[in-house]
C-alpha cells in the first residue's frame, strides 16, 4: 500500500514538472489566428435599433463580409474609421459593425459625427457574442466569404496596407 502511494506521489510530481516543461516552449500569448480558414461560428446578434436579429444567413447573401468590432470609447476605432468609410463604397463587400460594450447615445453621436460605414449594425452590450469570434480587444475586424469561411483577422485598427489587402481579396 505504502509503495503504491509513493509511486502515485512521484508520478504526480513528474507529471506537474513535465507540464511545466512543455509550457515553457509554448507561446503563452493569447492568439486567435487559428480561427483563420475555419468556418464562422453560429451567432444570433441583435441589431443596433433592436428591430431584428442578424445571423450567418445575412453573411451568406454577400460575396464578402467584414465584421468590424468597435466602440465610441475606443480611440483607435476613430483612427480606422476613414478606412471603413472607404470600404463601405465597395460593392461586393458588406460591412457588419458590432458595437462593443458601448452606450447607445455615445455610439450614435460617434456615427453621426464620423459617418456610418456599416450596411448592418448590431450591438454586443456585454461583450458575450464577441467571445465567439475570439475578440480580445477592439478594434478588430474579420473578413468572411460567402461560404462562411474566415479569410483574415485584423487585430487593432485597419491600416492602409490592410485596406489594400482587403481590396485585393475581394476583387
Amino acid at each position, binding site marked *: 500500500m505504502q509503495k503504491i502511494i*509513493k509511486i502515485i*506521489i512521484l508520478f504526480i510530481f513528474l507529471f506537474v*514538472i513535465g507540464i*511545466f516543461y512543455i509550457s515553457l*516552449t*509554448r507561446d*503563452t500569448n*493569447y492568439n486567435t489566428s487559428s480561427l483563420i480558414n475555419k468556418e464562422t461560428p453560429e451567432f444570433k446578434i441583435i441589431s443596433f435599433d433592436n428591430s431584428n436579429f442578424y445571423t450567418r444567413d445575412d453573411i451568406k447573401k454577400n460575396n464578402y463580409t467584414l465584421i468590424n468590432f468597435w466602440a465610441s470609447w475606443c*480611440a483607435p476605432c476613430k483612427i480606422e474609421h476613414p478606412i471603413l468609410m472607404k470600404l463601405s463604397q465597395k460593392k461586393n463587400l458588406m460591412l457588419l459593425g458590432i458595437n462593443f460594450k458601448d452606450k447607445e447615445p455615445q455610439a450614435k453621436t460617434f456615427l453621426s459625427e464620423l459617418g456610418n460605414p456599416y450596411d448592418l449594425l448590431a450591438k454586443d452590450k456585454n461583450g458575450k457574442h464577441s467571445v465567439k469570434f475570439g475578440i480580445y480587444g477592439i478594434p478588430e475586424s474579420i473578413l468572411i466569404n460567402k461560404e462562411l469561411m474566415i479569410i483574415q483577422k485584423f487585430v487593432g485598427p485597419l491600416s492602409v496596407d490592410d485596406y489594400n489587402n482587403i481590396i485585393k481579396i475581394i476583387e
Partner: protein
Amino acid sequence: MLSNLGNILLFLNVILSLSIIYTANRNLKISGGVDKNIFQLSLIQSTSIIICFFVLIAAFIVSDFSLITVYQNSHSLKPLFYKIAGTWGNHEGSLLLWAIILSIFSFLFLVYNKNHPKKFRLLTLIIQNILILGFLFFILFNSNPFSKISPIPSEGLGLNPILQDPALAIHPPLLYVGFVGASIYFSAAIASLITNYSEKSFSLSIKNWVLISWCFQTLGILVGSIWAYYELGWGGFWFWDPVENASLLPWFAMTALFHSLIVFEKRNLFYFWVIILCLITFTLSVTGTFLVRSGILNSVHTFASDPTRGIYILIFLSLMIFGSIFLLFKKYKKENYDLNRNSKETFILVNNWFMMFYLITVLLGTIYPIFTDALTDNKISVGPPFYNAIIFPVVVVFLLFMALGPKAKWIKNKFENIRTYILILTGAIGLNLAIIFFFKSYSLLSNFIIISALFLIISSLMDIAKALKKNKLDFARIISHTSFGFLVLFIGLNDIFSLEKDYNIKLGETKKFENYSIQLQNLDLKNYKNYQAVIGKLEIKNINSNQTNILNPEIRIYDKPKTLTYEAAIKTSLIKDYYLTMSNIDRSDYYNIKFQKKPLMAWIWISVIMIVVGGSIRLFSNAKNN
C-alpha cells in the same frame, strides 16, 4: 569597473560557498565543536554578497549604463530614491537579493543554534550553501546583473512608472525575506532527516525562523495589496492574480507549519508532517518564482520573460523536489497518533487541514490554466469567481474553529461552558441583525461570514477578560486571532457597503447620485522632474451632512518610458475612503471619472498589521525564553 568588481565578488562568493561546504564536511568527520573557520567563512560570505549588492546599487546611483540591467531599468533623470529601489525592481537585481537573504539566514542560523547537535547544524549549513551555489550559478550564467553592454548607451530606458512608488520599493525585500527565508528551514528539515534529529528540540531550532519569515511574508503581501489599491486605480486590493497567488501559497504553508510546531514542541507529535511542511514551503516559493519569472503565466506583473530562465529554475526545482521526496521516502516511519478528537492537538490539526485546503485551491486555480493549455490547447483563465466561491464559504467554518481551538486543553478537552458559546453566537447574530436593520441587507453567505467573524472576535475578547483575571495572557495568539476575525469582518463589510459610480464629466459640470454630488471644478497642468500631470480638482459633497471633500486625481504622462498612468485620489478616514480616478476621453472635453466609497479600508490594513504584531510578540517572547 563596477561590472568587474561585481563579477569578482560573485566569483568570490562561489568560492566561499564551496569552501564552507568543504570545511563543514571535513568538520563533520572529526569530534569537537564546530570549526571556528566556518563561522568566519560564513561571515565573510554574507559580507561579500552584501558588498556585491552595494556595488550594483552604486551602479544604479551613478547611472552606469554600461551594465545592461542598469540600462534597462534606470534613467539618469530618475529621483535618487527610485534609482536605488530600481536595483531590486528587476529580475537580475532581485536574484542578488535572494542570494543575500540565503547567505544571511545561513550565517544567523549557524550562530543562533549553538545548543543543537553539531552534525545537524553543519548539515543545514551544507544544504543551505548548495542552495546558495544554485542561485549564484543562476546569477552568473543566466541572469548576471553585471553583464556589460557595448557600445555604452548614453541614456537608460527607465523604470516602469507604476513601479516608481515607495510601497513598491519595500514590497520585494519584505516578501523575499519571507519566502527566501523559508530556505533555512528547508535546509534544516533535510539535515534533520539525514541526521535523524527528530527530537522535540528540533522545533526550537526552526520555530523562530518560521515566525520571522511568516511576519515578513505577511507584511510583504500587505504592502503589495496597498500598492495595488492606490496604484492600479480600480479600488480593489486583491485580484487573485497568479503572482499574488504565488506569494500566498507559501504563506498558507508557513501558517500551517508554525501551528503544527506548537504540537510538535509540546507533545512530540507530527514530526514528519512538520518536515513535509518545511519542505513544501520553500518548494512553493521556488515554484512561485518559476511560474512568475519563466513567463508561462500571464499576469498583471510584467516581468520580462525568458525561457532559458525557466529551464534553469525548473531544473533547480526538480532537484529540490525529487531530492526531498527520495529522502523522505527513505526515512519515513509511520507515526501512530492516538489523538483525542476533542483536544488542542486535534484543533491545531484542523487548522492545518484548512490551510491545506486553501493552499490546494489556490494552487489548482493558479496552475490549472497551464494544464489546460498544455493538454487541450484551451486557453482559459481562472478568476475571482472561482476563488470566492470556494474559499469564502469555508472561511465561515474556519473562523468558528479558530474561536474554539485555542481554548481547548492538551490531550483531552471538555467543553464546559457550552452556554457561553451559545450566548456569544446569539450576540454575534444580534449584531449582524443590527447592521442589517440600521444599514442594509446582504446575501446569506455574507450573513454567515459576518456572524462567524463576530463570533471569533467576541470570544477572543472574552478570553482576554478571563485571562486578565488569572493574569495568564497569551497576547501573541489573542492579538493575531482577534485581528484575523476583524480582518474578515472588515473585508466583508467593505464588500457589502462599497459604492461605485461612473460618469463622463465636463469642466464645471455637477453629477448627483444617492446623497452625494460631485463637481469637476478645475483642471491644472503641472510639470515634474520625470513626468507631466493633468490634475483634476473635484468636489465631493455629502448632501445630508453638508460635508465637502476635495480630491485631486491625476493623469500622468511619463517620458521615460513614454507611458500614461492614472493616479487615484484617495481620501482616507477611519470610517471610509473616497476613491476617485480620472481618465481623458480622446478628442472630447469630457473626462471619465470613477468614484468609489470604500468603507473601513484603513481598518483592513490595520488588522493585517495587528496580525503581524501578534506574530512578532510571539517571536520576541520566544527569543527571551531561549
